[in-house]
């Protein structure tokens, strides 16, 4: 492990807020974050992503307005909207469908707060996780009762505005047996305004429950985001993650899924579209810890200008996890000579009776396809836009409802148009 000491400015912010994590959970993390410091490029897990931006104090927040939200409320009027601005919970509806309970961490009792942090308080050498545990003051516990079918999506809108310290949030999602829910996280920021969020989400899916989890990084080209999801699946549970990141100065998402019991299934779908000098990075770690479990992972990066996209997908199949099926693909589009894509599948298989396949490709826009579109009178710029949007569409089409598919397709098209116009 290669570590840089925790930057002074970060050390000085450690005790600024009353932490939500209680007693020993907090004190342990508080000690370890200082001990471990920030990872450097020499750390295998961080070799492509430089946290240099965090070594200096963040720019002092100006008098900036709260960034606009995702605009999803117009698309999903029935959804349940929860808003965090600069890491602070600013909106949480009181009226909820049966079977859904929301408990802001600020109002949670000691036991509830312990429950939110204990499952993922610290892991060795993981300073960003320890930092969250040591300093997070805000967050939410989402409880979905057994057998509840929560139809309206639960939307967590993160309005990433600058603050003196990082926005540290902790979210716990508990899906009761046989329940079903959709959780959508959105991140937006004002362009050119630096903010940093270091967030952690822990989801526990009980037997036969289903959670669809969308994480959508939208506006805000100067956002810094270090974000973790830790998900455990009990017997027959189904988890689908769709991770779409369209911008940010630095976005590092880590998605850890642990399939602990038989019959469970996990989908991990992702699309990252870095441009300018953005770095968009996702690391997934999927553990098949039980027999007869399945997974489907599809990631795509479209890198333009000097953007960098990073995808590392680790799949671990435990020794007695026989009869599992794991499929992974990483398909990437490199649109400019100064863009960069790093992709790495990492399969560790200890069982012998498994079906695992993986593949990674990095390509350019297809000249034949471009010519075909041009031969129909479509301008080069529009033809490129169609092809890029078409490539992205393969992931966008996996979004749960036609409304979401159309909305996201529209966002991507408009973005490509804006780029064309530049």
């Amino acid at each position, binding site marked *: 492990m290669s570590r840089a000491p925790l930057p002074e400015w970060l050390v000085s912010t450690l005790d600024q807020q009353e932490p939500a994590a209680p007693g020993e959970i907090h004190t342990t993390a508080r000690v370890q974050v200082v001990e471990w410091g920030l990872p450097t490029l020499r750390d295998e897990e961080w070799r492509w992503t430089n946290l240099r931006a965090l070594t200096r104090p963040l720019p002092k927040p100006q008098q900036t307005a709260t960034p606009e939200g995702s605009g999803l409320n117009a698309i999903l009027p029935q959804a349940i909207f929860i808003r965090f601005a600069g890491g602070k919970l600013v909106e949480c509806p009181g009226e909820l469908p049966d079977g859904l309970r929301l408990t802001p961490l600020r109002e949670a009792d000691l036991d509830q707060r312990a429950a939110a942090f204990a499952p993922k308080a610290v892991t060795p050498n993981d300073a960003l996780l320890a930092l969250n545990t040591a300093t997070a003051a805000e967050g939410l516990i989402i409880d979905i009762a057994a057998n509840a079918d929560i139809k309206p999506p639960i939307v967590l809108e993160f309005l990433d505005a600058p603050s003196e310290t990082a926005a540290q949030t902790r979210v716990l999602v508990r899906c009761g047996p046989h329940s079903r829910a959709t959780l959508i996280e959105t991140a937006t920021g004002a362009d050119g305004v630096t903010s940093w969020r270091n967030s952690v989400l822990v989801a526990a899916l009980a037997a036969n429950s289903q959670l669809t989890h969308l994480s959508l990084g939208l506006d805000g080209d100067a956002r810094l985001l270090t974000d973790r999801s830790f998900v455990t699946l009990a017997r027959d549970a189904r988890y689908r993650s769709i991770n779409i990141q369209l911008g940010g100065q630095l976005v590092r998402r880590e998605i850890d899924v642990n399939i602990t019991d038989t019959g469970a299934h996990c989908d991990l779908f992702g699309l990252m579209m870095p441009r300018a000098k953005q770095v968009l990075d996702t690391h997934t770690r999927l553990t098949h810890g039980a027999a007869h479990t399945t997974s489907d992972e599809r990631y795509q990066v479209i890198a333009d200008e000097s953007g960098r996209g990073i995808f590392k997908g680790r799949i671990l199949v435990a020794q007695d996890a026989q009869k599992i099926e794991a499929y992974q693909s990483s398909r990437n589009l490199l649109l400019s000579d100064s863009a960069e894509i790093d992709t790495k599948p990492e399969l560790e298989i200890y069982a012998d009776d498994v079906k695992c396949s993986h593949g990674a490709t990095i390509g350019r826009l*297809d000249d034949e396809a471009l*010519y075909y579109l*041009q*031969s*129909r*009178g*479509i301008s080069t710029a529009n033809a490129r836009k*169609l092809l890029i949007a078409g490539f992205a569409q393969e992931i966008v089409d996996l979004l749960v409802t036609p409304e979401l598919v159309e909305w996201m397709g529209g966002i991507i098209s408009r973005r490509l148009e804006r780029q064309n116009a530049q």
Partner: protein
Amino acid sequence: MKLLEIKNLHAKIGDKPILRGINLCINAGEVHAIMGPNGSGKSTLCQVLGGREGFEVTEGSVTYDGKNLLELSTEERATAGLLLGFQHPVEIPGVKNIYLLKEALNAQRAARGLDEIDTFAFMKQVRELTKTMGMDDAFLHRGVNAGFSGGEKKRNEILQMLLLQPKLALLDETDSGLDIDALKVVSEGINMLRGADRGIVLVTHYQRLLSYVEPDFVHILYKGKIIKSGDKSLALQLEAEGYQDILEAAS
């Protein structure tokens, strides 16, 4: 009226000369068929006219509708009313057919100074065309040619042609790989375009297309040159006797 005039056209792919002095004149209202053995340069001619990169014109001229065609980009040629039907239409998964059709039609309209087409009118027009071409509307929402059978791809080429209403259609083996029903549908589509102000070029190996779409002229292309031209009876003669005699007589 001359729609297309090709004079002494030479072209190479890489270092390899393929077209070696083509002369051809197409007037509005005419249908021309180009036949010839494999590798004689028929598709190359189509692609040169389409403006494909990597196909270099080394000599000669092409005048289309009074303009120097060779100076125009591929998309300018298309918006000027030239349409290329591909021998092997490419598959573009992810780009829905309907988007291609709409973008293409709007590009044509923009070139003529018209506004973007109203979505309702567009859908109505497209649905009529899918019906004409015997295609299910589901094709509109699939990726362009993605996973289409050979015949479906060719129907799709004709559908695009009928939507865009080109002045000059160059159809490269649009009849290859079609069963008899599909051939009828495709031929009817081509006949729908036929008109006094339009020109059509059919590249084909088979007389059977030409019995549905009767050509005014038939040309035989061999080793990058038109070695013989005639009327529709030339295609019948080829069908009956094969290329051998004609090639020998010409050499």
